[in-house]
């Protein structure tokens, strides 16, 4: 974690020093906040992805399992959270549930009181719902013979999934999943509407104070840097997973 905080300070110092001559009025006051927002966006994306991905695998397994109850629950979850706008979900979770207050939410209140944690929860739920369908697509596209060979050798359902089906399903699903992660990055800007000061939130604040349109150009550049880095990372993983002979 120290490394992360050091990186934040370093980025803030170097970037702000570099940009000060370019846009003096704006960055004299706001550069630190701006870089701070950039890191908040990264945090939201990374945490939502790291929690959302295993959650999506679980949902996809439930969806493809023989249990009709598990399958129906997983399907309902995906149906609701894929079928409603992210913006509406954010507002319901933050303003809607928030209105219930400490008395209504009990132990969950600390989670719902804080815009950042609500943003994180909603982004995680949202991406897991989308990713579950993507991974389900991967699972059903694993050739049936692969499963039969596993079952015929005496593997249990869980061993079959863990050792045979998922490693292949994730390879099949990866390009589509990469796309979902990029969509999540862009969708994450919506958390600014529930007062989270992510990159978009900071940009809006700085604009509201300065009326300087430059700031949006810088926001675009930072978003492009983020999505570019993400694309490279996801592609690298895809290449690493590629099997010889295909």
């Amino acid at each position, binding site marked *: 974690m120290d490394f992360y905080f050091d990186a934040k300070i370093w980025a803030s110092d170097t970037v702000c020093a570099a940009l000060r001559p370019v846009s003096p009025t704006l960055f004299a006051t706001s550069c630190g906040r701006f870089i701070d927002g950039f890191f908040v966006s990264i945090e939201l994306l990374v945490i939502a992805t790291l929690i959302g991905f295993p959650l999506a695998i679980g949902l996809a397994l439930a969806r493809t399992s023989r249990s009709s109850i598990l399958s129906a629950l997983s399907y309902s979850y995906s149906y609701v959270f894929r079928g409603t706008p992210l913006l509406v979900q954010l507002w319901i979770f933050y303003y809607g549930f928030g209105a219930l207050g400490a008395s209504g939410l009990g132990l969950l209140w600390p989670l719902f009181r804080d815009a950042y944690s609500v943003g994180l929860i909603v982004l995680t739920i949202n991406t897991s719902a989308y990713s579950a369908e993507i991974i389900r697509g991967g699972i059903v596209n694993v050739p049936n*013979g*692969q499963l*039969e*060979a*596993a*079952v*015929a*050798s*005496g*593997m*249990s359902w869980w*061993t079959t999934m863990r*050792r*045979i089906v998922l*490693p*292949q399903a994730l*390879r099949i699903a990866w390009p589509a999943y990469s796309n979902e992660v990029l969509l999540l990055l862009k969708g994450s800007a919506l958390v600014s509407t529930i007062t989270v000061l992510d990159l978009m939130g900071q940009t809006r604040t700085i604009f509201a104070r300065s009326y300087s349109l430059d700031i949006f150009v810088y926001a675009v550049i930072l978003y492009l840097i983020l999505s570019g880095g993400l694309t490279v990372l996801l592609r690298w993983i895809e290449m690493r997973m590629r*099997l*010889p*002979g*295909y």
Partner: protein
Amino acid sequence: MDEVPERSSTGPIQSYLSVQNIYKRYAELEVLKGVSLEAAQHEVVSLIGASGSGKSTLLRCINLLAIPDRGDIWIDGVRLPLSQDDGGPRRIRDQKAVRLMRARLAMVFQSFNLWSHKTIIENVMEAPIHVLNAPKAETRDKAEALLARVGIADKRNAYPAQLSGGQQQRAAIARALCMEPKILLFDEPTSALDPELVGEVLKVMRDLAAEGRTMVVVSHEMSFVREVSNKVIFLHQGGIAEQGTPAELFRRPQTEACQKFLSNILQ
């Protein structure tokens, strides 16, 4: 007590594998109509017949990849734990017992079905380690020996897609052997192969038969069937039309269906 797979004195323990009066239907199509089969230890039983005659389904019933609607299966004196036939779909009563049984009935598939994300040696080691909990180092030695035996030791670190069909099928046989199976089930093991690759797979299978492995083979390779089988079963429209030693069946087929089938295929 009903849940335990019983080793019963009433069971046909003289047979190593006993399939008794199996019925199987898929929707409107009745694939098996009361088929029985017995195999003693060290015997090779071959199933022949036209496509759609039910021979693959019969083979898949033996390890319950297909669950028979009626009938029982006994392996080495143990009955596979299926629920009683009450008209509805039958279930596996004891998943764990069935998994143990499947681990001892290795199957070789027409389309090889090697796990595509694992190397050849990983394919061979996978089930012994993750189903039988065999120690890793020992299993690796055994896997290497088996790959050498089927003649693809040099391919151990290749992926299935990098091998020819014949090499893949030999790897699949090594994978089956690494489970130390009681019975080997072959489901048209050479049907997906280019003609020039059939021989190398049949050679491995001949060796297995010669060393006394108990095998049930579905095959269209009549000269192979004739040479290695102790018993040949001719299936026709979901039933056993004829069975006997290869000499009896190939020289003097009794039924018209079998005569027709043999004359077609031997041309």
